[in-house]
């Protein structure tokens, strides 16, 4: 077994030493003497969080299928080890070989959410790699980023050599081939980046300059290197049933947040909810073939020994073969002690049947995500869930024995009125009232309804990318109003209202629609000690505020400002399939509370047809 990078003494001093020892079941081992490319993948959060992420498992498997490449992993050291590594100048190492990352060819970050940005800087600094891309030398690894946050990479552009925009299954092999060739010829970093920039989906920030107007909006986004493309097109894996998927996912020694087999059944979504970035950028919806899924479910369970399997997609009820798949899993695996973890399903007869087979109805909850408290506002956001369907669904479930309901809403949606907000409390109460129409003898005790509201953050490539976001004060005022309304409800004792802190969402709002000027704020906040921002016990908003002040960057400019159609947005250089015209059309339909039908009901010409596949070219089975 490999010698560990950390001494016994350090490992015995810190929390959960198993985070740093590697050697997991299904870990790939390769002979470094036969390797041309050393790649290190990073999920910039603590091990247990990173190990739950499906994307890294897919890429780990994909890269390691190349004989000339060894892909290893690294995660953010926890705060206790972070401190020791700085004191003792221990370079950050990859788990497989326990060797310093600074000697690798590539360090790739998967960027899933905005609040991990300071952790990215932590990993760079602890690896002893210069934080700013411009400071890196020929000896440093190429630092790249992928994942949903690359749909607006500008706030962190200064820290990356390049971004890979879109789905990872397509052009990484090309990029690695180009790298290898360049290395053999004795080419430089710049030579490589120029060649990489010619590959679709690759964005090299250094090849573009941004100029600003007096009012701080973007004046121009211009290329300064001929190798860069004018528009970066997102990558899409069109063949979901003949592509990379891990048959032997890694099994951590400590409990990861998702301690189970995850089956991604499809990618994309037909619904077109206007607040949802994933639903827009992953268009068009593409299903995985059911035989593929059945085969992988069996293999993955056999190779990991996990006791639970879950289905993952944006809207699982829309998977056309869902019934067949779920019944297959129940029939094959329930008797073998494997728990089937169901995604959120539309409540219908099928869902109730299946839920009662795999869950203890007395302990599990029914989940609805109306997101808005009134039909008007639900129409504005294009969330086609009617009150009638919620109440009917809930009633059917109650009659089958359920008595716990979870409801998800947002506050701060565009055009929101007091009536919309109060509607959240009223709807929650209506569900409770439905429950109590069941005669007492037939009921399973009291009903428990938990309603929670999160703070709406407008995202790039959604119809709301031009919207104004509420201020923290406005949001908190709305929460107060809502809390008071809940207290007026008849069944208030059966309802719990969970609200969230505003400050983290405000920051998320800045990074989601930020530009390159924000990067210095991230750097300063990190240097001042900000880390693990998405962990409430470590989130230091006062340090962030100071970083904004010191750099004279106004938070409100990014969050509270309504944009006009003509404004150049920081992410305009990316082609995500959905066109700007479509998004603007949808924005106007939103303002008029006009619903847009889903992709299977009617095509709205969003632009995704250009990929020539998926739902756009499905046979319409009515």
């Amino acid at each position: 077994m490999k010698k560990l990078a950390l001494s016994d003494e350090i490992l015995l001093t810190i929390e959960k030493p198993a985070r740093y020892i590697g050697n997991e079941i299904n870990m790939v081992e390769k002979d470094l003497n036969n390797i041309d490319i050393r790649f290190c993948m990073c999920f910039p959060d603590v091990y247990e969080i990173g190990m739950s992420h499906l994307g890294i498992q897919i890429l780990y498997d994909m890269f390691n299928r190349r004989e000339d490449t060894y892909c290893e992993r690294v995660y953010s050291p926890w705060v206790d080890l972070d401190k020791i590594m700085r004191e003792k100048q221990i370079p950050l190492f990859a788990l497989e070989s326990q060797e310093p990352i600074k000697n690798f060819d590539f360090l790739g970050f998967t960027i899933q959410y905005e609040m991990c940005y300071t952790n990215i800087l932590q990993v760079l600094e602890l690896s002893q790699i210069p934080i700013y891309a411009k400071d890196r030398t020929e000896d440093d690894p190429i630092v790249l980023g992928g994942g949903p946050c690359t749909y607006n990479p500008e706030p962190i552009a200064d820290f990356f050599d390049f971004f890979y925009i879109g789905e990872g299954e397509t052009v990484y092999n090309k990029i690695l081939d180009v790298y290898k060739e360049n290395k053999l010829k004795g080419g430089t970093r710049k030579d490589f980046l120029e060649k990489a920039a010619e590959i679709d989906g690759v964005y090299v920030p250094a090849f573009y300059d941004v100029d600003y107007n007096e009012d701080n909006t973007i004046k121009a986004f211009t290329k300064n290197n001929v190798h860069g493309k004018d528009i970066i097109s997102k990558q899409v894996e069109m063949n979901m049933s003949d592509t990379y998927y891990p048959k032997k996912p890694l099994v951590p020694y400590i409990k990861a947040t998702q301690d189970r087999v995850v089956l991604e059944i499809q990618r994309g979504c037909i619904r077109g909810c206007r607040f949802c970035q994933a639903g827009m950028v992953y268009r068009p919806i593409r299903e995985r073939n059911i035989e593929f899924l059945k085969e992988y479910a069996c293999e993955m369970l056999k190779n990991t020994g996990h006791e639970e399997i879950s289905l993952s997609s944006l809207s699982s009820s829309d998977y056309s073969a869902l019934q067949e798949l779920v019944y297959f899993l129940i029939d094959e695996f329930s008797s073998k002690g494997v728990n089937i973890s169901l995604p959120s399903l539309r409540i219908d007869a099928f869902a109730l049947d299946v839920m009662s087979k795999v869950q203890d109805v007395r302990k599990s909850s029914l989940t609805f995500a109306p997101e808005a408290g009134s039909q008007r506002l639900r129409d504005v956001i294009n969330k086609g869930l009617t009150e009638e369907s919620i109440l009917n669904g809930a009633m059917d479930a109650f009659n089958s024995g359920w008595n716990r309901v979870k409801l998800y809403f947002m506050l701060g949606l565009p055009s929101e009125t007091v009536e919309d907000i109060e509607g959240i409390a009223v709807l929650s109460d209506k569900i409770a009232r439905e429950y109590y129409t069941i005669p007492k003898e037939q009921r399973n005790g009291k009903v428990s309804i938990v309603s929670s509201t999160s703070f709406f953050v407008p995202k790039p490539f959604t119809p709301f990318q031009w919207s104004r976001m509420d201020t923290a004060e406005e949001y908190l005022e709305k929460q107060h109003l809502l809390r008071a309304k809940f207290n007026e409800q008849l069944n208030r004792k059966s309802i719990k209202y969970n609200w969230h802190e505003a400050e983290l969402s405000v920051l998320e709002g800045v990074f989601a629609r930020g530009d390159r000027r924000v990067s210095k704020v991230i750097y300063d906040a990190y240097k001042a000690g900000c880390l693990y921002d998405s962990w409430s016990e470590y989130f230091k908003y006062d340090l962030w505020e100071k970083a904004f002040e010191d750099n004279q960057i106004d938070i409100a400019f990014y969050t509270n400002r309504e944009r006009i159609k003509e404004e150049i947005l920081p992410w305009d250089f990316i082609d995500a399939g959905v066109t700007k015209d479509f998004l603007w059309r949808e924005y106007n339909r939103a303002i008029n509370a006009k619903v847009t039908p889903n992709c299977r009901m009617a095509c709205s010409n969003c632009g995704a047809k250009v990929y020539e596949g998926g739902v756009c070219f499905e046979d319409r089975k009515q």
Partner: protein
Amino acid sequence: MKTRIKFTKSGPLKFIGHLDVMRYFQKAFRRAELDVEYSQGFNPHQLMSFAAPLGVGLTSDGEYLDLQLKTSDEPKAMIDKINKAMAEGIQVVDFKVLSDESKNAMSMVSAADYMVSVKDGYEFMGMEEFKQKFQDFYNKESIVILKKSKKSEKDVDIKPSIYHIGFDREEFYKNIGQSFDKDKKSVADAYDNGVKVFMQVATGSSNNLKPELVMEAFCQYTGIEYNIFAYQVHRMEVYADLGTEENRSLIALDKMND
């Protein structure tokens, strides 16, 4: 049927805690497709129990878990099946089917053999000096140390809980009345400085003496600072007591069915 599995723990896996070792075996048994018996209900779990939890940082040649199986192959096949599904660092070395009346391992644990080695890179006396001083320490009528538990702390005489000591394997096995097999493999780490001591101590729910505490008491006796990181504790074997309190009759957990 009741079965008893003996396994070793070494290398990086010494940093995995007991609960995680349990979860690790649960998944390994599923990968090995063993015909495990499960409990009833919505959250069925495997019917398994461990003899004595091993602390984080310790290695071992003799850990035990009892497992309820519906059907089983013969021992060698079972050992191979399970080891194929496991990583280096935890390996099964024995598999036995127990009689139905057998008591579970945890309730029987009474004593254990340990080897405590001084790690390299720490200031410590040489072997000759250590042997002399430790022997003097052990020869005392009583060894009193402050024993801290979750609820209280009190002075305890740990001498009665130390059954035997030795300074090399052959001597130690002679002292404990076991045959010495010089070819027997061990997963324990070896350190260049060579300073080590073997001890057989009380282990289990009623009376449990940690080798670390013995070393702490030794340091106190010789007037040197006790550095918790300077020692590697390696468990060699775990025993049940088939005798009485006055007249111990220790038998290793893998020899019980014979």
